[in-house]
């Protein structure tokens, strides 16, 4: 058995496919590629696939990471050439590597995530900057999600308008924590900024993991 780590971009066609469904999308992609996926034991065998840091529905990403296990010996290049023709619209392969079987689970390794946000409606640049600064200077940003009260402020690491941001196409740089149990949601930040998350195109552009030597 071998463990592979794949870096990929999630583009428009899979924007509204959630994490659970992405699991199926990958399983079927591997099946089309005729790669022998490792399945869990038991009555309902599940394909062994692990995604890092779930991406909220409706977001695009340039930096998704997935681990999968194959019941065969193959080089990353061989896996890549089997996968390429089997990929569905909405996935662009960036990189494949082999990783040790005992490497820690991806879900436990997330540290932070960087998002670029394009607002679909024009917005005055000074006002956008002011709101970002207000947000950052707040001691706490109490918010409620699914009937649970939490503080959004400590989850925000960086927030400012991107240099190329204009009044016509306002853009934000947003870095949020992405640790297990402490993951910020970009739509929540937009709400805290008084902006409508459904009038925004959000893309995850970087994922940072805890550096650990195996």
């Amino acid at each position, binding site marked *: 058995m071998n463990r592979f780590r794949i870096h990929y971009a999630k583009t428009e066609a899979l924007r509204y496919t959630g994490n659970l469904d992405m699991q199926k999308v990958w399983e079927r992609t591997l*099946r089309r590629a005729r790669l022998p996926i490792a399945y869990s034991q038991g*009555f309902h065998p599940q394909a062994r696939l692990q995604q890092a840091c779930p991406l909220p529905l409706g977001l695009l990403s340039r930096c998704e990471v997935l681990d999968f296990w194959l019941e065969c010996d193959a080089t990353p290049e061989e896996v890549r050439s089997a996968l390429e023709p089997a990929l*569905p619209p909405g996935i662009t392969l960036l990189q494949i590597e082999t990783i040790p079987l005992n490497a820690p689970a991806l879900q436990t390794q997330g540290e932070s995530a960087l998002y670029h946000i394009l607002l679909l409606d024009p917005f005055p640049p000074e006002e956008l900057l002011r709101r970002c600064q207000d947000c950052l200077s707040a001691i706490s940003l109490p918010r409620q999600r699914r009937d649970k009260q939490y503080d959004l402020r400590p989850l925000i690491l960086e927030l400012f308008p991107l240099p190329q941001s204009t009044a016509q196409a306002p853009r934000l740089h947003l870095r949020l924590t992405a640790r297990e149990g402490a993951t910020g949601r970009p739509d929540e930040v937009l709400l805290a900024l008084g902006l409508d998350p459904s009038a925004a195109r959000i893309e995850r552009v970087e994922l940072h993991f805890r550096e650990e030597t195996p």
Partner: protein
Amino acid sequence: MSLSATEIQARLERILPRVAKPGRYVGGEQNQVTKDWEAIPTRVALAFPDIYDIGLPNLGLAILYQALNARPDVLAERVYLPWVDMEAFLRQERIPLFSLETRHAVADFDILGITLPYETLYTNTLNLLDLAGLPLRSAERDERHPLVIAGGHAAYNPEPMANFIDAFVIGEGEEVLHEIVDVYSEWKAQSGSRPALLRSLARLPGLYIPSFYTPHYTADGRIERIERLHPDAPAQVTKRVVAQLPPPPTRFIVPSIEVVHNRVSVEIMRGCTRGCRFCHAGFVNRPVRERPVSQIVSAIETALQQTGFEEIALLSLSSSDYTNILELVDAVSAIEGQHLVISLPSLRIESFSVELMEKLRGARQGGFTLAPEAATERMRQIINKPIQTEQLLETARAIYSRGWQTIKLYFMIGHPSETLEDVRAIANLCKQVIAEGRRILGHRAALHAGVSTFVPKPHTPFQWVPCDTTEQIQAKQQLLRNELRGPGLKMTWTSPAETMLEAWLSRGDRRLGQVIELAWRNGARFDAWQDQFNPHAWQTAFEQTGLDPDFYTHRMRGEDEIFPWDVISPGVRKSYLLEEYHNSQCQQTRPDCREQCFACGILPTFSSLRRANPGPLWKCPEVGTPRATTEVQP
């Protein structure tokens, strides 16, 4: 004027984050076919009038989608209904219904093909036309609008939807589909009028153009006669059949979100020779044609390669009757693939079925389903499904002892002349079955009885009989609920109000179109969804039109009555259906017609087709030279 594809896309981006399961509205799945809109002369929208989750796995549309897109001169794109949350946004933001592939407004297509597999999609169909910005009634549309075509099992009685559909395709679409597109392209090249197009279509065998016929009624509401308004319209439209099933589709669209069936579906056989008298599919899908084992196996292999699906369904009306079923099951179970789940529904009640299922059993297993439909010998003779109780019990023993813990039994209440004793027998039979289970498996044994209510269908031997009243149904269901209690027993049933809806729509006439339209205006839609079904909207619609639902549901029809659907011929003669109805009344059964021909009418109707395709292609036994040959109406 309708919105452009780009404008629709831009407006959608702001709505999608606010609706449930936005993945329903974006397309872009593996195996979707997208062509250059500007470069293709004939553009067809294929619609399933329910949400994506239900419509995507529909095999009929998959066949048409692949066949149309295989032509270089045609593009076919998919359209489904939005769920209620999305509908509200579309209306509020004035976004017309659009195709998933290129987001073009439905109104911009040349042809809108709608599949109508069952009647409870009728109000959805009106909603679909309305969301597309099209006038509901065919008479109010012209050459500026797409040609609206409907087909599918419900189209065998086209009359309730006759006001809204320009042309119905009766029977199998595989061949006639191409003829329709050819007629359309020729007409479009000449920039003809809508009536000219309809006249050309009327000349195609299998096409019913409702505007070329006018029904006349007697004072009490029965059909007096059906007047033909155009010489090109045939007196009776005979369904289309393909002589030989073409290779099945393999490039299934792989949904990127969860839908009702996520699998490769292969139709192994079309039609059924058993002749169960309640069964619409059994009478309208004759003759029986099978696909060869090798073709099925190679289709599955290709489809698995193209989709990556982990499940295969082998579909037919009666799998056990497939000639080489053992060979097929062996070949399919030998197909390579990790953790493949293979389903084989519609098995006969015999222990051989258990052996078949055992060969197919993958790592996962659910319950084992059988459909005895009735529990007394008398009832089984009436419906012509003669199975022995002892055989059912023996099969149940085999199922429980080979590792299945749950048996699912399908029954129907409301068969003609059914008494409370016949219904009580259903409960008793279930108790006998669970007793076998408990003897073998102890408390782990389970039995699930699915009890639906019989609705008389057009073109069957029971098209004359009344449907049970709501009170009768309630009494029977109450009896079963009282009797079917105990450990391991579970029962599900259909609400009588939903049965009534299906009953009046199934045998409705053209006047019922007003009721459907008013019910939709009163808020009825998604009638097949328990949580959306709105009986009040229908009741009000009947009151508004002055029509009586009981006239359609509970009336015993006369043997010489002209039915609204008599203008359609499924190839089976009405006199044969009547003969079968008489047989049912004297509890006379008829065996499998693979063994012996009972002259239902299929062979004379399609005699030239049969002559060109002799031998075992059709499962009809050889009957010698037909005396008189009636050609299919040109």
